[in-house]
Structures are given as C-alpha cells and as structure tokens.
C-alpha cells in the first residue's frame, strides 16, 4: 500500500529579487514498511521536500506552486490546522540533523519527551502515569542507561550521540506511521554514526515504521535503505532498488557522484562534477543538469526529461535512456 505519494510538487521561495524555484516537480512514493533513501548534495531540495510534506515550511517566504502530497491517500496541502495537527501527532515524525538545535535547552529531556507523548494522545485520555511509563520505555528502546534519571537531565548534560538517541526516542514514541530522518547522523562521529544507524534500523523494523532517510552520504544510503532516490536541483533524477543503483548508476549526475566518493580501496579520486549547483533565481531550462552534463544534447536544453523506465523499479530522468 502506498503510504506517501508526492506528485509533481513545485515549491518556491519569494525573496527580494524574485522567486527561488527550488522544487521543480518532485515525484516520490513510499510503500508501507519501506526504507527509502533520498540522497543529494547541499541545496538540492531534500529538506525542503521533507518540510513541505510536514507543512512546516514558513509561508511566506515559501509558496507551493503546484503538485500534491498524498498521505494515506489524502492530499495534505489543503488540510486545515486541526487535521494537520493530527498528522503531526501520530502520522509523520521527523528527526533533524542537529540534535542540539532540535532539543530545547531550558527543559529537561523528560519534559520534552512527555510533551510529545501527551500531544500524540490528543484523541484519547491518557493518564500522567501512562505518559511517564511510555517515556521511560522509549528511552529504554534507544538503549540509554538509567532512563528514570535520564528524564531529569537537560540536553546540555548529554553527548551528541546521546542527544540524537533522545530525538529518535521522541520521534518513535508516538508510534507514527512515517518517519522522516533528515541527515540524522551527519553531525556525529563515524563510530557513533554506525551505532545510531544500527539502532534506528532495529527500531523501525521492530515497530514497522516506514522511513525516508535523507542524507548526502552514498555510503549511508547503501547500507541502510532498500530503495533510493537521487535528487538534483529540485527534482528526482534517478530511482532504483539500492543494490541496483550502486551496481548500475545511469544518470550522468549519479555516475559523477559515485565516482567522486573516495574509496577505501585507494584507487584515487576522480575529477568530480564540473560547475556547481544552479542559481534557483534563474535555473537553466530543460534538464537542470544540462550545463554540467558531459553528455548534453540539444533536447536537454529545451525539455525537462520525463522518467524513462529502464528496469522494473529503475527509472531515470535523462534523454540518454529514451526508447
């Protein structure tokens, strides 16, 4: 069953000097129980996509110019505050990149965790005792020692890795159907990253939470997800089963990205991709990758490429794969 489906989503930011056309027709879907990766470089619109889905983009300056976001079959874009609140409470949760910035420094872990659980229980009555028990249980789930004492701590008393575990506990405490993890391990050291990712993997499997993992690290995507979307300058350029994508990257952008990753085998580093991400005030027409593409053709400058299906589940937005 489709849990989430984003169709042709276009979002821009009205700023002094014009409109930044960031999302340029995003298409993404997620089945129940799936672990999907969204990978791309800084400024390609990964977080904007996530925040649009949760409707937490500040509007203005942001504005939705078109498309729809179907969550459980309902378009969330026209929903009112009350219905949106319900989705935030038990439908979709999010883990942000920087756990230090997403926890409030003046409240204890317990205050914040209990708040989240109380908020999720808006539909039915839930006693203080139950809330406390669930808070303790959720800390236990993320393997934090001595949960009772942990609840009395302030974020500053914990290390970065522990703070991110708290954020994971908060996101999963509400039994949401969908979890969006936006670069959950980018600010952590590599040994801590490995621990947090493994923990997150165990928990979403155990709770059967569908997950979108947003990251810029191809390695993390390969080890963690089943299916992956590669995003460039506001739209998905390629999607495939993870193993398939790493064996057979098709889009010139994906290919360039893969080559630029330094390998443990030490075969040197390729040149990377020339040029840089386009200016969203005045993005290039046609395929947005064409100014940087080594295989650019005439048609690329004129038309935005549709998705060409190469294999089952492997689609690529590039005219090289037409027909």
């Amino acid at each position, binding site marked *: 069953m489709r849990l989430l489906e984003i169709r042709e989503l276009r979002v821009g930011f009205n700023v002094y000097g014009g409109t930044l056309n960031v999302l340029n027709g995003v298409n993404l879907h997620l089945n129940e129980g799936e672990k999907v990766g969204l990978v791309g470089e800084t400024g390609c619109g990964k977080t904007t996509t996530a925040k649009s889905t949760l409707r937490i983009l500040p509007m203005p300056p942001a504005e939705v110019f078109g498309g729809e976001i179907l969550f459980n079959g309902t378009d969330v874009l026209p929903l009112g505050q009350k219905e949106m609140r319900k989705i935030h409470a038990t439908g979709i949760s999010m883990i942000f990149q920087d756990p230090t910035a997403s926890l409030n420094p003046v409240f204890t872990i317990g205050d914040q965790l209990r708040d989240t659980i109380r908020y999720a229980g808006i539909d039915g009555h839930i006693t203080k005792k139950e809330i406390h028990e669930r808070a303790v249980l959720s800390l236990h789930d993320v393997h934090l020692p001595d949960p009772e004492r942990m609840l009395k701590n302030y974020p500053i008393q914990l290390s970065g890795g522990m703070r991110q575990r708290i954020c994971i506990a908060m996101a999963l405490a509400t039994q949401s159907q969908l979890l969006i993890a936006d670069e959950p391990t980018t600010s952590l050291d590599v040994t801590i990253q*490995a621990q947090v*990712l493994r923990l997150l993997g165990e928990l979403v499997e155990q709770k059967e939470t569908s997950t979108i993992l947003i990251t810029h690290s191809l390695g993390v995507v390969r080890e963690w997800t089943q299916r992956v979307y590669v995003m460039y300058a506001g739209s998905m350029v390629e999607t495939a089963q993870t193993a398939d994508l790493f064996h057979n990257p098709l889009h010139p952008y994906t290919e360039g990205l*893969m080559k*630029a990753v330094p390998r443990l*085998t030490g075969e040197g580093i390729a040149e990377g991709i020339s040029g840089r991400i386009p200016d969203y005030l005045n993005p290039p027409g046609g395929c947005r990758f064409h100014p940087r593409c080594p295989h650019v053709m005439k048609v690329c400058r004129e038309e935005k490429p549709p998705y060409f299906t190469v294999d089952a589940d492997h689609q690529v937005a590039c005219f090289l794969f037409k027909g």
Partner: protein
Amino acid sequence: MTDEILKIRDLKKYFYTKHGVVKAADGVTFSIQKKETLGLVGESGSGKSTVAYTILGIYGPTDGSIQFKGQDISKPWTKRPKYFKKDIQIVFQDPGSSLNPRRSIRQILELPLKVHRIEGNGGREEQAIRLLDKVGLPADYMYKYPQAIGGGERQIVAIARALATDPSFVVLDEPTSALDVSVQAKIINLLMGLQDEFDLTYLFITHDLSLMRNMAARVAIMYLGKICEIAPTVEFFKNPLHPYTQMLLSSIPVVSEKEEEYKPKKIIPQGEIPSPVDVPPGCNFHTRCSRRMEICSRVDPDMVTQEEGHLVRCHLYTGA
C-alpha cells in the same frame, strides 16, 4: 642529514579550565618527511586540531619539542621569527569563516604578501593574479567577495592565500569536510597537483578514513590526545592493529562490495569518546575496547614497533 622536515617529540598541550585539566595533546610523537602527506585521523575531541595549532604556534606547547627544519620552534608564534611563519601555513575547515567577508579576494590574497613584504616581479596585483592562476581561478575573481562565490571556490581561495608566502609545509585542517563530495574531489585533486608542483609537505587532518586512503602516504590515528597507531597507508588499511583503528574502519559506510573487504568483521562499535577532562586511567581506550584485558585499566601501554614503520600503542602487542 635526514629528510625530516618536522619532528615532534612528546608534545603536550594542556588547557586549564574550571572543570579540570584538559589534556588535549598528551605525549604526541611523530615526524614528517619532506614532500610527504601525513594523515592525522581522529574523532571530534581527539586533539588533532590542537596538535596542528601547536605546530603553527597558535598555542604554545605545555611540554615537549617541535623541530622544524632542524630548529626548535616549540614556542608560541609571538616568539617565532617571521621567516618560520612564512614557511608554515594552514587551510582551515570552514572557508565561510576563515575568509573576511568584507575584503575582496584581492585584498585577502595581498595581505600575506604585505605582512611578509614579498614584492616579487610586477607588484602585488600581478602576484595575486598569479596565485589565482596557480589554483585555476580566472583573474576576474580578484574583485569578488567571498560570499559571492561557492563554498568550493572559497576553499580554493583559502588555499591560494596559504600559498602566497611560498611555504614548504601546509597544515590542512579538514579542508573538505564542509563541502559536498563532487566539490571535495576537485579540491583534493588540486591539492595533490599543487603538492607535486611546489614540493609541499602536508599535515592532513580529517575524520574521513576513505579520503585518507587516497591522499596520505602515512596515517596516524589519534584518540583522546594520544596517537594509538601510525603506519604507512597501504599497510595500515591491509593490517589495522589497534582495536580502535579496527572499530573506526568497521564503522565507515562504503559504496561497494570491494571496500567491504577492507572492513574488519565482527567488530561492533560501542560507547562514545569520554570527556577529555576525565580521561580513563591506563589505556585511554579501554572503556570501549572489545579486547580489554585486566592490565589495560591500570597501565598505559607504550608505543611498540610491529613492523617497519608500523607502530601501535596497545597491550595486545607489548607482550604484557
């Protein structure tokens, strides 16, 4: 006469804080050959930047010695002769904050020339253009400001600035960790090209072991202010000895099956780096080590040579 350009022996840098003494570098010993790249790897808080800053003289060392080209420079920069400062340069992690936003690229590049009174042929403007040319940026970048150019280009300007005084030794403090991989590839290739062209010696600091594999000739791993393993890169990745090194390697997310073979199996990363104010007694890694022995919590192991150039500081190899 050896070809050692930099020799650090038993370097200590302590910071005295309200909460206790932070031993940011605690007995660090290594040396770097001319035209070599030594990689210094460690998690945040391991003291790798402290070591770099002490070499540069931003901090004076608490104890130990730093010899550069045979002369002792274990003192803060205020007490160092100017020609040493010219010879040792640094590229910082975040080009957004290491370049003054209110100065044009030209002013940024001319400052070191002014400070060191480098005239050269054709005046400073000519030299600034030549510096930009060295790093492959067009001359019209002279009149741009840092915020008008991309993050990668900013880092390239920072590299050009470091080269302005014609140094022989450059510290690269995580020069690409704020950048995307496609940009990182460009910067790394540029750095390696410049090294060949100008016979530079690099101390390359990073937390990214896969990058290190492609960049450094030798690798040193730091943990809580001490070096726990140092070896030539190829040997290091083929045969990692220290349990911490093995844990680091097994944590790296890789993009191909071939690389999986380099990751030590059956090692599960655990625990977090302890507070540097409260360093565990004995071997500082014993709290997270999977092969901990009784002796580890009591005695700090000595550095032992396992093979030619491969040193490790662990009781598993001291024969204890």
